[in-house]
């Protein structure tokens, strides 16, 4: 299993080194690679539809079910694709308990309508720290909890000097009352990171924004 996992990981990393930024410590993840796959698959589908239309303008004289005889082959192909897709992505589960990397910093995140409160753990109920500073390279475990309704703890990165004008979403986790959810991340790029609520939590949901800093030692 170990070998399979590593091979799978190598495969994805070879295709796009940043495809799984989480825990890999690379904050350069973007969805370009998936976007290209989606666009290619859509293009192939459209070509398929055009071919289908063409075929109906050139009907067979005798009904031979030319394509239908390959149905079993087709099923085998898609089953293999789906198994490969599942197996190769399993090593990158977004759950801290699925990984052996231990965090060296824990941040408590409390959410309530319509604000965020970050504080160094363990200190539930401790005062919020504005623009909390985290040292570059730390493996950070965020413990998230809500004081009222369900929120979504989403973290975006944006570098003003980068060519990416839209920033990028690095990770997220749901924040639910009476439960403590968690997410782990290693920051490797200094700068400001933005928190945005990613679960509809009421009329002020769109204002639920905060930030923190990653600073080099």
């Amino acid at each position, binding site marked *: 299993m170990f070998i399979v996992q590593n091979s799978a990981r190598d495969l994805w990393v070879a295709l796009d080194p940043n495809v799984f930024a989480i825990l890999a410590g690379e904050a350069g993840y973007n969805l370009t690679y998936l976007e290209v796959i*989606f666009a290619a698959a859509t293009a192939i589908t459209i070509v398929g539809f055009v071919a289908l239309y063409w075929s109906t303008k050139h009907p067979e004289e005798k009904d031979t079910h030319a394509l239908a005889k390959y149905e079993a082959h087709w099923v085998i192909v898609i*089953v293999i694709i*789906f198994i490969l897709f599942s197996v190769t992505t*399993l090593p990158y589960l977004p759950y801290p308990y699925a990984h052996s990397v231990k965090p060296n910093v824990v941040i408590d995140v409390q959410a309530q309508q319509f604000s965020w409160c970050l504080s160094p753990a363990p200190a539930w109920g401790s005062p919020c720290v504005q623009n909390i500073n985290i040292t570059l390279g730390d493996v950070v475990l965020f413990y998230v909890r809500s004081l009222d309704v369900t929120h979504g703890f989403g973290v975006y990165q*944006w570098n003003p000097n980068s060519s990416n004008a839209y920033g990028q979403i690095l990770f*997220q986790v749901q924040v639910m009352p009476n439960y403590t959810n968690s997410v782990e991340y290693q920051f490797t790029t200094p700068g400001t990171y933005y928190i*945005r609520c990613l679960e509809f939590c009421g009329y002020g949901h769109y204002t639920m924004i905060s930030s923190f800093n990653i600073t080099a030692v």
Partner: protein
Amino acid sequence: MREKEREELLFGYLERGTIKKRQEEREEENSMSQPQMPSTLTAEPAATQALTPYTRKWVRRLIYLSFLNFIIAGTLALFMRTDQGGAPALIGPLGTPQVFGQLLTAHGLGMFVGWQFPFAYGLCSYVFPKYMGRKLYNEKLLPVIFTLFAVGFYLVWLSILFGFGPGWYFLFPLPFHGGPAGTAPWGPAEALVFFGGMIITNISLIVFAFNIFGSAFSTKYDDKYNNAPRMNHSFSAKFAASIGFDAYMPKAVRERVVSYPPAVIAAMVTTLDMIVSAPPFLTLLGDGAWVSLNQPGFLNNLVAKNFVWINYHPIVYFAFFPLIGMYYTLIPIFARKNFASERWVRVPWPLLLITGVGVYSHHLFMDTSQPYVLQLMSQNMSMTIGIASGISVFTIFALIWRSRYEWNLTAKFFAASILGWIVGGFLGVEQGNTSLDIYEHNTYLVVSHFHFNALDGIIPAAFGVLYWILPEIASKQWYSKTLGEIHFWGSSIGGFGLAGTFALLGYIGVPRREYSPISQALPFTAGYQPFLILAFFFAIVVAAAQIPFIWNLIRTLLGPTIKPPVVAPVPEVAVPVPSPLSRQSPDPTLSSEVRESKGTAGASPPVSFRPEGSISGASAGPATTTMTSLGEADKPEYQRIETQSLELDLDSTDDILSKVELERQEGMNKSG
């Protein structure tokens, strides 16, 4: 002989070759004595007494109600787009953040419940009489279903009108906590009306399911599904056939099970999914109503979230599955050939039945408190639903491939729908993967996924079916084909443009459900604007494309009722040539008297679209003899020879049918 054979088999006396030979002999014997009818059709079935005028009346009322809700819910969506895309660049926000929450709730519920429920009720109640030849188990329940649904659902919308706005899936405890103390836009009264309305809506579902299961399994019907000789009619055999599981049985067992038509299998699968997931959902609604009465709730938030999604995922399929059933039913008619294998038609359905509910936990991938076993199950189920969809799409493609396909309006809508299904499926598989979902959850990619699947998948299929069945259920002839074409192209261009733009928004990380995705506190969000405006533009296109549809529908319904003509038993009859949306079977050997006498299938108007400004089909009084008049534009589609027809009242058609049937049989006896 059989006993001896069994004994020989038991004791191993027979050689392999002898067994095979005897099996072949038995198969031959069976096939001669019991010809197996294919469960799919290459022509519309002949008129059936099962689709009674009463059933037709309530089916069409349910479908009218569904499209009324569709138009209202769609209009609400347009206002959401102005809030997000139009503001502040074009026209400024029309609503407030609070109104945006209400729009969000009303649009989602309006489409998934307000539109889908009555449409699925109507379609499922249509396919049993139409394709199984069975009168509904209790058609008098249709008005009960209609009333319960209408009361329940409009209570839901009423609560939203008065301020209730926690989103269409109302994650607990948001319904009871609309904002910081003193600022909540709604209170317990609105929440109570909402939960009460949802409970009544779901009671209509239970009544509907009772009717469907009765129609599928009751022993009161004297037909081939209950009484075919030498076949297995046990409940387990019927249940297996009703969900398509017979496709997985060994040949010897399969051959003794009477297969159900695909449209009926689809209706059964979707109803089963809904009913299996109803108890947890009703528990949740009960809890919501209880808490609204200021009582302590009995579900914790994680369980509540599970109970929402276990029902809300199958909801998405509620109308979609029966519509896939209609692909399997109508596409062979358009392609003028049958499937290469009846078995492949049924293979996806048991998978869809299980995965329809089993995928639900992929809505909770970002809840690390959710047990991992459920996450793993739902990831695998999400992949399996991709496999089931892949099989369906391939089966349909293979059928159409190099056939003499009739690209009528319904066929075009189906093609758009299948394209939306596939493209939305790509995104669904992507998001159904736990490791990727961390980047995509609650972004516009999710919105893109279900708009490809719903706006470009379910809705076009529903329009296709509506264009097909309206002449039959409403005895009306479509007012204009041109308006239908404009509707198709506008909806398709706008719909795919909108969902495609949502995908772009998703890939750049724009969160969904934001009153204003662009925020000054987030400098990188300024770049979202052009995409939001593009989405707004496509939404306008979709909305504009519905205007010809509404006009066409109104003019059609206000137009003259088509009295089903009964062609007198004279040798010369109108020979139908396949034409766009002509409901006539391409096979003229089908009993045209029977088809036309019933005002169903073939009896729907000779041409479904009449040219604007002209009326085809005289509307003389009952039992008068008239000549069928065809509009100028219709002539090329029909080789009109000589037709003599009787105009009849719908209610008296049963009597006339039996009379005509008798005359036909007499004629056959004479000629025989």
